[in-house]
């Protein structure tokens, strides 16, 4: 069996495309092993590190995993707690016991979260139901602010390496920004101009997600808006 790599690093690939031949390569992300070849399952960008062939999707919905930090909107109050919409086919549950460290008295559920509120929550369980928790920091209810929606596949780019991008955005604009891994972003700031500027820069990151040197571009964009 010949060992052969069919693609270059950072190349865009389509579903079913053969990325590598031979048993020594290891699929990662959205790539899978198909007999003696490695194929992609999605439209995405491929990366090669040694013998690991990885594919990251360019588009697509959010699929929850345990310990993800997400932003959701409370849609309904139930007996067990709250139902939360998290941008995917099934709604998530926020049970009473995971909502707060303090005791929640009967009839006081709306003091914590009411319909329409946005929450920053962690996923504690993914199975038949998706369970959320807001018990520990930084998970909390999100107050007044702007919510924007981006493609979940672009979230790593918006956060940046070790949070470099999001740190730049926060520091230069002075806005409060919370990024949920499900693609919802909450922005809050005293100056509306700056909030809109942050919104614009995030849209810019989304449009140019595949290019290099974005952090500098964003910094320039946010600083330029100050004048």
């Amino acid at each position, binding site marked *: 069996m010949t060992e052969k790599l069919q693609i270059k690093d950072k190349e865009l690939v389509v579903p079913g495309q053969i990325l590598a031949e031979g048993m020594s390569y290891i699929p990662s992300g959205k790539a899978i092993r198909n007999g003696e070849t490695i194929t992609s399952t999605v439209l995405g960008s491929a990366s090669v590190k040694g013998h690991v062939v990885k594919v990251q999707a360019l*588009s697509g919905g959010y699929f929850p995993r345990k310990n993800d930090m997400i932003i959701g909107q409370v849609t309904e109050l139930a007996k067990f707690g709250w139902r939360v919409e998290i941008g995917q086919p099934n709604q998530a549950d926020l049970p009473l016991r995971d909502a707060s460290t303090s005791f929640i008295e009967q009839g006081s559920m709306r003091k914590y979260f009411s319909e329409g509120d946005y929450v920053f929550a962690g996923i504690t369980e993914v199975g038949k139901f998706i369970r959320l928790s807001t018990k520990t920091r930084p998970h909390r209810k999100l107050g007044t602010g702007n919510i924007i929606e981006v493609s979940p596949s672009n979230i790593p780019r918006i956060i940046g390496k070790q949070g470099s991008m999001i740190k730049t955005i926060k520091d230069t604009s002075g806005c409060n920004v919370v990024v949920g891994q499900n693609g919802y972003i909450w922005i809050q700031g005293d100056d509306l101009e700056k909030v809109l500027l942050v919104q614009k820069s995030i849209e810019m990151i989304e449009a140019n997600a595949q290019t290099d040197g974005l952090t500098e571009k964003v910094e320039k964009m946010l600083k330029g808006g100050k004048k």
Partner: protein
Amino acid sequence: MAGKSSEPMMVKGKRLDGRKTNEMRPMKIKMGVVPQAVGSAEFSMGKTTVVAAVYGPKEVHPRHMMIPDRALIRVKYDMLPFSTTDRIRPGPNRRSREISKVMSSALEAAVYTKKYPGTVIDIFVQITNANAGTRTAAINAASAALAHAGIEMRDLVCSVAAGKADGTVMLDLFQPEDNFGEADLPVAMMPNSEGITLIQMDGDLTKKEFDESMKLVTEAMPILYELQKKGLINGEASFEGGKVK
């Protein structure tokens, strides 16, 4: 098969629109034409133009249609009233229901449905202009739209028809050849695995003619695959004069 034409379909080894028997019509693909959808594509094959939009995976309504261990692929094929020479009555009819059904099974074979249990992937296909080969064009558009939506798939699905007109086996029939021809054979395939996901035959072909048609279709698949691939990567692509751009 609306009966034989008095005009010959082949003149000096060339077809009525000047193509060779193994030649496809010029094609064009454009991604993201429906911003509201998760994924969308516009595909044209000669004068046939279709728009496909993908919504989902999302919660299934009505609930009884839900399949607990995999995704439901629901296709709605629809011809716009002005897409044909005579106005056609809008809304579903017997023909469009059949095509929706065969399209959904043709595309389901390529999607990893088990990755999206209990959900539905809705595919809406509108035929904006019909000039034969609408179901094959619809499958090409839907396949590209599914990939554009980021849905996990085994392969892209490529589709083209072969057929017989005026006694000659030819690839990718257009309107007069389809209307006055003897047979039409639409085929959908997954080019990498060479798996056939759709095959229908309208009219009669001998075993030899059938094999010949299948050979024409199989040889055309790499072009369709290249076109979809280029379209997905660059946003749009076209096929003209034997080249994919």
